[in-house]
């Protein structure tokens, strides 16, 4: 029998979070690192998302975390030596009712107080920014010029390539089926093929983070839900910014190829968790996008897909060590925001794991916060079915 492989750190999940973390750990020369994914890298939500990026949230905790990320996005292509197609096209949160507008105003104040250069737009300014938008659909909004979009697959590949260059070993098609624990300490993992020794496991398994935690005997407060998207045929440029509408629970942008790409959530989420689209959701999207952009009604639908993500009780990610199980870390529960959060997620988690100190921006997202009564209140996130890009 050959001796089992040994790694200093094993990351479960080759999505954008796991790969960003692997790269950032390798930058800090933390020893031998392996990433395992049960399918191809980026096969989870990381290759299926709306690609939208902003830091204009409503709570200090979210703004600090996501603004750290936004600043990293600006230089990411150069840093990773791979064009991730980050475009600072601007990100508008649309207000459709006076209540929406009041919320935008409160959030904008907080954002400005924290140094973000967001600003309120009135209906006329929104019409100027997006002439194709149905004027009846808006009363204004809050605009973040520095926000934008990037290409999801390119980000996954960029992190994977940079990580490999630094010596990280990435194993696609290698599911983890057990996490080995001995007296409250991580000792290794079992893949579909073999046992692997390690003292540190990071759970970055996206929608499956709850299952992976259970392998280690840890119960996480995570709910799994699905999000759907559609893409149209290429169209003439008509939407230059990334746009989200809390009123319609929708988010959208036009890609460099001219395709309109958007997702929305129906009011009643079905409990189905497969990756096939549901007629209900597709009709809901068609109706919402057609009413925001009347010009879209004639556009042909080209592709549609779904992805699944996990969310925590306060919808913020679970980032940090698990109390009571030495060597077990979480980078999970990113809901509808884990793509934009990936540069900071990986950077800060690498700091936490190697220095043993919790970076300020991460502390509020510690996995124990629900037990200690410190759940985060993020006002741009409301209701049950609202996590949007």
């Amino acid at each position, binding site marked *: 029998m050959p001796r089992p492989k040994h790694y200093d750190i094993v990351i479960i999940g080759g999505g954008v979070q796991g790969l960003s973390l692997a790269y950032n750990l390798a930058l800090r020369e933390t020893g031998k690192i392996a990433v395992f994914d049960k399918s191809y890298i980026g*096969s989870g939500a990381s290759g299926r998302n709306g690609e939208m990026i902003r830091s204009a949230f409503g709570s200090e905790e979210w703004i600090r975390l996501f603004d750290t990320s936004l600043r990293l996005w600006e230089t990411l292509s150069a840093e990773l030596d791979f064009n991730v197609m980050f475009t600072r096209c601007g990100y508008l949160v649309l207000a459709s009712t006076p209540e929406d507008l009041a919320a935008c105003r409160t959030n904008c104040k907080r954002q400005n107080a924290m140094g973000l250069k967001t600003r309120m737009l009135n209906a006329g300014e929104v019409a100027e920014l997006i002439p194709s938008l149905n004027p009846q659909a808006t009363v204004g909004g809050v605009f973040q010029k520095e926000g934008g979009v990037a290409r999801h*697959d390119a980000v996954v590949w960029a992190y994977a390539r940079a990580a490999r260059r630094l010596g990280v070993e990435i194993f696609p098609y290698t599911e983890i089926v057990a996490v080995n624990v001995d007296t409250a300490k991580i000792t290794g993992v079992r893949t579909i093929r073999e046992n692997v020794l390690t003292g540190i496991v990071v759970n970055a398994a996206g929608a499956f983070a709850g299952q992976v935690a259970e392998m280690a005997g840890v119960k996480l407060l995570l709910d799994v839900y699905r999000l759907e998207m559609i893409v149209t045929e290429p169209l003439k440029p008509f939407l230059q910014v990334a746009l989200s509408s809390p009123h319609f629970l*929708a988010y959208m942008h036009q890609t460099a190829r001219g395709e309109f790409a958007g997702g929305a959530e129906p009011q009643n989420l079905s409990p189905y968790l497969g990756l096939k689209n549901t007629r209900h959701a597709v009709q809901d999207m068609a109706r919402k996008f057609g*009413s925001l952009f009347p010009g879209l*009604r004639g556009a042909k639908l*080209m592709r549609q897909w779904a992805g699944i993500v996990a969310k925590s009780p306060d919808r913020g990610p679970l980032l940090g060590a698990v109390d009571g199980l030495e060597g077990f870390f979480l980078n999970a529960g990113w809901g509808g925001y884990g793509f934009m959060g990936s540069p900071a997620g990986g950077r800060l988690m690498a700091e936490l794991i190697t220095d043993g100190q919790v970076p300020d921006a991460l502390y509020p997202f510690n996995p124990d916060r629900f037990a200690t009564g410190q759940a985060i209140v993020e006002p741009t996130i409301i209701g049950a079915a609202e996590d949007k890009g």
Partner: protein
Amino acid sequence: MSKKMVCFCQDLTDADIVRAIKEGYDHLETLKRFTGAFMGPCQGKMCAANVVKLYAETTGHPVEDLRIPTMRPPVEPISLGSLAPEKGGDDDA
């Protein structure tokens, strides 16, 4: 190698496909995402056979073992408007 067009919508030659496979996009799903093959307006109807054959030759995977990346429904393109026929305008969600 010769420059033969294999995916017309996305202007991809056989050399483009082989290069992508050699660069490590060596699963049909990642190959699709990297090159854009199967993702043009015809959604692969014109190129799937070409690309899969070339992929099989380049990687040595027998064609029979390959699953062509999901044809994302709908098979025939339909307009957004016809999917939401109830009404248009400023209806509520």
